[in-house]
């Protein structure tokens, strides 16, 4: 075997060895959790109650702009919120949700906002929301179930109200 053949053979062997080494590493990398706090979540005690911030806004195009208490929500200036230029805070309150029970709040349009803390899996909390009509009948929003971490917020918007719409924000408080 010549020196060139030895060199070629060594090169092929090196690539094969690299594949053998890298493939199990890639497989292990796939098993790594994308959430760095998972280990802490597994060790923390189960929480039965979470606090959520209920925010009810009135979105209109009356040109008054966005209320001062809403500076931390730049998404209000982006679509689809940007279709309204004024956001006024109608209600802002802290609600404690206990797992397995529901809490009901009356909206400015007399509909009922039903909130439930359904479950917790790792760091995600499952919250269910429904909007019921005041006069009974079919719910306006029968089911909305979301999974979110503490500090995250989601919105339910679109109900017609006094020339604008209602925007309901729910934030899972830390």
């Amino acid at each position, binding site marked *: 075997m010549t020196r060139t053949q030895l060199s070629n053979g060594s090169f092929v062997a090196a690539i094969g060895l690299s594949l053998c080494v890298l493939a199990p590493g890639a497989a292990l990398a796939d098993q790594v959790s994308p959430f760095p706090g998972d280990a802490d979540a597994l060790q923390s005690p189960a929480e039965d109650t979470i606090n959520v911030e209920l925010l009810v806004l009135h979105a209109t195009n009356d040109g008054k702009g966005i209320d001062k208490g809403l500076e931390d929500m730049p998404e209000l200036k982006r679509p689809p919120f940007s279709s309204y230029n004024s956001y006024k805070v109608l209600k802002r309150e802290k609600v404690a949700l206990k797992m397995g029970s529901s809490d009901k709040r009356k909206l400015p349009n007399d509909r009922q906002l039903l909130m439930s803390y359904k479950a917790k899996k790792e760091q995600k909390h499952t919250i269910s929301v429904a909007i019921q009509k005041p006069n009974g009948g079919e719910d306006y929003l029968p089911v909305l179930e979301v999974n979110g971490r503490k500090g*995250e917020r989601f919105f339910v918007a679109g109900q*017609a109200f006094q020339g604008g719409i209602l925007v309901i924000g729910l934030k899972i408080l830390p």
Partner: protein
Amino acid sequence: MKTRKSTTDRDEKQSVRPRDLMLFLDGELDEAQHLEVERQLESDADARCHVTALRFTGSLLRERAEDSTAADSIADLVMARIEKRDLPAGDIDIDIDIAAAPPPVAELRNGAGRRALSSDPSEAARPAVAAREGAPRSLPHIGIPPSRRTANDNARTIWALTAVAVAAAAAFMIWGKAGDGPVADPTRPSTSQLPVDPTVELVGNPPPDLPTTPDTDVVGGVEVATIDFGSTHGSVFYVPGSGGETTTVVWLADDEPGGQQ
């Protein structure tokens, strides 16, 4: 004493010295000496054998000397052909014939050795020269010996395997990187389905009474696990926030007059 006389007689018969024989073959003797050597060769068999051996040796040397210049004659032949045809060099069809190639040394030795047994030593080199003269004006065929071809094929095989291994490594790398990327969310539309503002992602209206159940997480935002719009139409938006996270927005249509107070 008789023995001595016999030896003296033999010495007298071998009066032709080897040096004189070489000069005789080279034609460097004067006429008288030349005739004298010829006369002695007629009567001296040993001298004739010596002359024959010298001629054969000389023919071998001349032939090898001509062979050593064969490579130089290749260029001369090519140029001569170019000039003869008056064509550009790229159009020259060089016909290479192995028959005109210098014979291998072993073959030359054997053939010449057999010819050297003939009575005329000058014939020893004649067949080789004749073959060269009778050969077509072409160049020796440059063929690759089978052993060389095998070695080259091995090298190609090794390089082909190397290329396959590199391609496999690249495929593994791409596959690994693709696995690290965000998983396609079946509830999210493709880029072509986005509304006018590309910063907003829209999940289309599901039909009534058909809950939408995403299978994967929304990176940095609240995940919509289940939604039932009922008789209402709605959409799910993922709006980029300030810190790079996304904010989930469920946007409902409200066509009922009773909804507005």
